[in-house]
């Protein structure tokens, strides 16, 4: 049995490690082989980028060697897939190698596409890459006052990020003693300030309390970089001195090129996590087209389900679990308080008041992630 894992991010790594432990005997007896193909020899803890943008973490804290995170029995190659040949159950890599499989897991993630909004790349700061997060911090540090706008592209990874970065901006300028010189205005695509109703109900009075303005039904159409004006699809605009953006995302280019899914999102069964029309292909994390948050948390819970099912199919000939849509998200409510949202397909999150303990739990999790991604937590 040849199991091919495409992608070495959060979901792919948790899945591969979980599977390697469940199938240790089969791997030892050479009945199973797990191969991972990734685009990088480094693994990034992506949630840490928000902290880099505020000078709370250094970039080198975000990385580990990918090989060091994997069970030794996993055959790991830094050689990304360039062509999926699903009908032949094989892929072709950048190096020109062919990998055949009996079961494949696609966990290639997503990418930011600020270029889809004219002026967004040039006119705004963001924190969805190491370079942009460092650049954003330097811009914040030099900022002495004026209008700060937050705009949100659709779809985007980490749906909590818009409110987190907004609360963090408030605390950052407050800590520098210039909050009274800064007007913060939050813009959001739908008709309330967060897509999760209970998050919106909690965040709105918090925004009111600390003087954050907001405009809903604002889908960013273009940024007039020269005049520093951001314009919406809905016909409104905001004149900014500093613009912070959550860029729109797409799936990876190879997914679109090989017509596996529009926008780079692969049509996926919401419970079995198999690719539609291909029962031996599973899809994880951001790569799916599921109506589930694009977060490491969703990828983590999906990976556990897929690993258990692939192992049980090998051992007893049948899957044993279904994914129930579980997601758990920390929500930083500034630099010293946090809460969380946990939900699934059937049950909405019941938000608790933010507190310092949850913030320190999140800060601890920033370190514990490396245990989690090894599949130990």
């Amino acid at each position, binding site marked *: 049995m040849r199991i091919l894992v495409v992608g070495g991010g959060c979901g792919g790594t948790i899945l591969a490690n979980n599977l390697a432990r469940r199938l240790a005997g089969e791997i030892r007896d050479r009945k199973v082989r797990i191969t991972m193909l990734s685009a990088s020899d480094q693994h990034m803890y992506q949630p840490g980028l928000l902290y880099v943008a505020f000078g709370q973490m250094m970039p080198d804290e975000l990385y580990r060697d990918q090989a060091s995170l994997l069970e030794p029995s996993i055959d790991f190659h830094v050689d990304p897939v360039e062509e999926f040949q699903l009908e032949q159950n094989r892929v072709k890599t950048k190096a020109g190698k062919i990998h055949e499989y009996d079961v494949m897991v696609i966990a290639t993630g997503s990418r930011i596409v600020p270029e*889809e909004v004219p002026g967004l790349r040039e006119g705004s700061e963001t924190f969805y890459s190491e370079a942009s997060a460092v650049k954003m911090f330097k811009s914040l540090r030099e900022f002495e006052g004026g209008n700060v706008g937050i705009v949100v592209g*659709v*779809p985007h990874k980490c*749906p909590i990020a818009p409110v987190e970065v907004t609360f963090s901006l408030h605390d950052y300028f407050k800590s520098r003693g210039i909050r009274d010189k800064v007007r913060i205005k939050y813009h959001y*695509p*739908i*008709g309330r300030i967060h*897509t*999760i*109703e209970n998050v919106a109900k909690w965040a709105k009075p918090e925004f009111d309390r600390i003087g954050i303005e907001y405009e809903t*039904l604002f*889908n960013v159409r273009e940024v007039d970089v020269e005049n520093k004006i951001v314009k919406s*699809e*809905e*016909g409104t605009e905001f004149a900014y001195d500093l613009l912070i953006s959550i860029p*729109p995302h797409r799936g990876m280019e190879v997914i679109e090129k090989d017509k596996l899914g*529009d*926008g780079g999102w692969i049509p996926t069964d919401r419970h079995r996590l198999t690719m539609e029309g291909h029962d031996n292909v599973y899809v994880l994390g951001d790569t799916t087209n599921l*109506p*589930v*948050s*694009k977060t490491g948390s969703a990828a983590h819970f999906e990976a556990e389900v897929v690993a258990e099912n692939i192992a049980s199919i090998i051992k007893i000939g049948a899957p044993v679990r279904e994914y129930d*849509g579980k*997601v758990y998200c920390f929500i930083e409510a500034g630099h010293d308080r946090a809460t969380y*949202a946990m*939900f699934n*397909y*059937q049950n*909405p*999150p019941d938000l608790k008041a933010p507190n310092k303990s949850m913030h320190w739990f999140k800060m601890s999790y920033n370190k514990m992630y490396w245990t989690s991604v090894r599949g130990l937590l």
Partner: protein
Amino acid sequence: MSECKTIDARDTFCPGPLMELITYMKQASVGDTLELLSTDQGTASDVPEWVNKVGHEMVSSEKIGEVWHLKVRKTK
């Protein structure tokens, strides 16, 4: 040629039905119709509010059983 695509946003709290619709509207071509399925009761008012504000066309809205079926045509 215009397409009619169905978006299954039943039983979703995040990113939610309207956010799903906006995602697929960005991928659609002018003239395409998208049918949004939602079990969120707020969808029946949230979606027309956005569609009217941004200037697309609300084709139909009906509740079948517990599921809202809303059809929207992309106009620009």
